[in-house]
């Protein structure tokens, strides 16, 4: 019998294959309108193809119900630090699905794709302007791929100078995991740089790592601690002095839009995450797009292709070209075009002043949270933050409740949890990024929830430790998942 409070219709979690009934199907295909051709010999042909057999109503209902198990920006506040979960304008999805864009073939000849090429060309220009780095390739399909590409640009640059190979890539200990991983994939040796007591990169430690093997440094600005590196100019100077290049991880660009010219700051190569700063929807884990922006002298190394404008006979004409010393292709085609269209639309809707307002509001919202929460939750570093604030649940931990528990309890309050346990250098980190698209009232409600949870930590810690209680499923056994991997449906198993 069913419990009073249960929502049984949300709990029919049978998989498609478990719902499969022989003979059912979801769509009818057109009849063959050409003479039937001889099929190839049997041994080349597929025997059984074990796919689900379900009707169209079942498909719609199954996935609609799945969707309702999700949390999303469209449902509520999603303060996941480092992820910039801002509102994704609906109009951008609409324009990206215009047939002239959504159904354009990547091999469509030049005269058939001038609109798309113009869009790419203009977007390159916009992003060059936003970063202050005019060489732009839109090819990378996410931030991490852009990092790899950027690292390869640095590698190609050094090679082009014919020096002995430089193998060291410096990476702060607060860096996102993709940075060291990308550096390694790019063939470099990763050398860590610690942060100082203020959360800044330890300049002295840096100085100790400079030298002839230095290829470059990967810096995130603001850092993953949500802090603007005050010594950034000096840092760049030092690295350049040693012959290295400075890579900027632009994942946190939401703090700097229209506020700082990254080129002027001394960055040589920077990637942007359009799925963060430029509001393209995250899709539950992609698609994203990670344009790579470089200073003039490095443009020849950019990943292929890039869009170019040429003066054709009278009219201007656009085309894709391979930069002269390109590090090569990153994917079969021209990047995640559908994502690029959305970012283009976003920039066109906001313009320069609008983008500048974005970063101002993002920073203000974060500092508002900081100011209102710092009495209850320890700050990782007690100073003004940029677009996100890193809290520590150290104080709560002393009362027996971990940051993880607080994060889970927030789900009961209807909020998504902050990013947990990152950056790695902050004990019990809770990294909160509100973004500019949230109202003050929402921030106030979030603050109230965190305050209430802090109360609960004192009054009823078990309530918090066993959270969440109101979500479609309870706390999940991740250890078991990793120990006994069950990664796909198999017949006869449930």
């Amino acid at each position: 019998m069913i419990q009073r409070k249960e929502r049984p219709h949300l709990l029919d979690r049978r998989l498609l294959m478990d719902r499969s009934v022989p003979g059912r199907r979801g769509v009818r295909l057109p009849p063959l309108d050409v003479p039937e051709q001889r099929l190839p010999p049997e041994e080349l042909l597929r025997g059984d193809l074990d796919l689900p057999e379900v009707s169209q109503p079942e498909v719609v209902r199954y996935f609609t119900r799945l969707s309702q198990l999700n949390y999303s920006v469209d449902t509520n506040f999603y303060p996941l630090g480092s992820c910039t979960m801002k509102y994704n304008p609906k109009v951008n999805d609409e324009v990206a699905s215009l047939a002239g864009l959504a159904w354009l073939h990547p091999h469509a000849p030049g005269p058939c794709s001038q609109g798309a090429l113009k869009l790419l060309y203009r977007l390159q220009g916009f992003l060059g302007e936003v970063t202050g780095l005019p060489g732009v390739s839109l090819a990378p399909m996410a931030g991490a791929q852009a990092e790899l590409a950027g690292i390869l640009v640095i590698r190609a640059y050094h090679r082009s100078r014919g020096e002995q190979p430089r193998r060291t890539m410096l990476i702060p200990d607060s860096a996102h995991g993709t940075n060291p991983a990308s550096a390694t994939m790019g063939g470099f040796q990763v050398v860590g740089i610690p942060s100082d007591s203020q959360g800044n990169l330890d300049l002295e430690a840096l100085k100790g790592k400079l030298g002839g093997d230095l290829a470059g440094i990967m810096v995130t600005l603001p850092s993953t601690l949500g802090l603007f590196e005050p010594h950034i100019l000096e840092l760049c100077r030092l690295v350049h002095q040693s012959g290295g290049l400075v890579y900027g991880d632009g994942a946190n660009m939401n703090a700097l839009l229209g506020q700082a010219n990254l080129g002027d700051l001394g960055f040589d190569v920077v990637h942007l995450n359009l799925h963060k700063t430029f509001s393209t929807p995250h899709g539950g884990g992609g698609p994203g797009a990670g344009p790579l922006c470089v200073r003039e002298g490095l443009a020849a190394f950019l990943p292929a292709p890039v869009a170019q404008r040429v003066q054709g006979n009278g009219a201007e004409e656009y085309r894709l070209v391979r930069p002269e010393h390109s590090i090569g292709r990153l994917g079969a085609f021209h990047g995640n075009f559908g994502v690029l269209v959305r970012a283009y639309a976003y920039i066109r809707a906001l313009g320069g002043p609008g983008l500048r307002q974005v970063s101002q509001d993002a920073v203000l919202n974060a500092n508002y949270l900081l100011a209102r929460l710092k009495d209850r939750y320890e700050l990782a570093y007690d100073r003004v933050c940029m677009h996100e604030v890193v809290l520590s649940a150290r104080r709560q931990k002393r009362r027996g409740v971990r940051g993880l528990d607080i994060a889970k309890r927030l789900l009961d309050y209807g909020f998504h949890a902050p990013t947990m346990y990152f950056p790695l250098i902050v004990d019990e980190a809770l990294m909160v990024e509100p973004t500019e698209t949230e109202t003050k009232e929402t921030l106030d409600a979030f603050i109230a929830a965190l305050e209430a949870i802090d109360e609960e930590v004192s009054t009823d810690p078990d309530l918090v430790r066993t959270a969440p209680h109101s979500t479609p499923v309870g706390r999940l056994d991740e250890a078991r998942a990793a120990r006994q991997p069950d990664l796909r449906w198999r017949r006869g198993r449930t």
Partner: protein
Amino acid sequence: MDSSRTFSPYSPNTPEDRRAMLEAVGVGSVEELLGDIPSRVRGAPLALPEPLSEQELVQELEVLASANRHALEGPCFLGAGAYRHFIPAVVRAVASRGEFLTAYTPYQPEVSQGTLQAAYEFQTLVCQLLAMDVANAGMYDGASSLAEAALMACRVTGRSRVAHLNTLSPFHREVVATYAGPQEIDVQEVDPAGALPLRPDTACLLVQHPNFFGYLEDLPAMERLAHASGALLVVATDPMAMGLFRPPGEYGADIAIAEGQSLGIPLSFGGPYIGLFACRAPYLRQMPGRIVGRTVDARGETGYVLTLQTREQHIRRERATSNICTSQALMGLMVAVYLATLGKAGLREAAELCYHKAHYAASLVQRVPGYSLPLQGTFFREFVVQCPRPPAEINQALLERGILGGLDISHLVPQGWLLCVTELNSRREIEDLVRVLRELA
């Protein structure tokens, strides 16, 4: 009336809200919060065009969109890695739901079961389709998947040479080179005809099947070739072909990848697409990418989580199996909805429609004097035509008649033209094409 230029419709807070918040923060202006930014890099406003209202924005994008000739606008015979297939409306209906579209990577599984269960379905479907043991939740695209497969094979075997057939897509080949280069992995082309033994330091043999030219490879021979040298067999395939042809798993592939675009993803000028990535069970822990696993919650109910994360960059950092983080989850959802909707019989039928139409087209084309099919063997929905004059000229002439012709591959095959025919090409389109070819003979 122009006040509307001064606000962002996407940001809610008003000047009054900001004032109240600044007061709570204890500063007089946001400028004060930005004090760490060196003043000399600030100042100049961004030189971007004026902001547009939504109405103007839509108009601008419509103008750009209509300056393209898209693949549903008329007959189209382009393929070569991106395919024009019918996409049922349910795929769009599901994928446009805000709860899927505007969620992040499912870091909080308790409120992300939609994304997670859909990814588990995707992994199941990929395994079923390719007849492989395990699959991840998707990679950037087919080409980068192949590159990651090559790196993985090197990790598995401890070797650093990658061999591939000369029938591999030149685009894929380039991407493999991009990824392999910095790790000092040699990429070597081998000729399938002269099936010499592979060099003993070869980590894997990469085979595309159907290959770039649309034809099936002799996979049993390739399997022997690879495994005889202790190399892994990596097969790149097309998922639509899996409706009709034996899957890589049945040929002993160790890693199988595919570009998933054929399965419900619009052409979109080349992306976003999705790479399908599967391998044999023993290699699971060397696999790149996100993986979703089934487990139980505190009450013993089934639930899904991201798992085996110790392979990944955010845990393992420089020792990760890959740097991939954000991938193409939404495309994975679309693939899952597409396959659920077509189902077992539907995918077979769709593949057969492609096959019969492509073969019908080939039979007509090769009867036109001057045109021939230079390659032997079995093809699926693409084939190479040797033309009596440069394919570029033919394409131009076709375009003038409203037909998008095949890909000019004369740099690979003399006067070579790669023609693709799918279920969206009607008999009439095929016959119209052939008529024009005859005129151009």
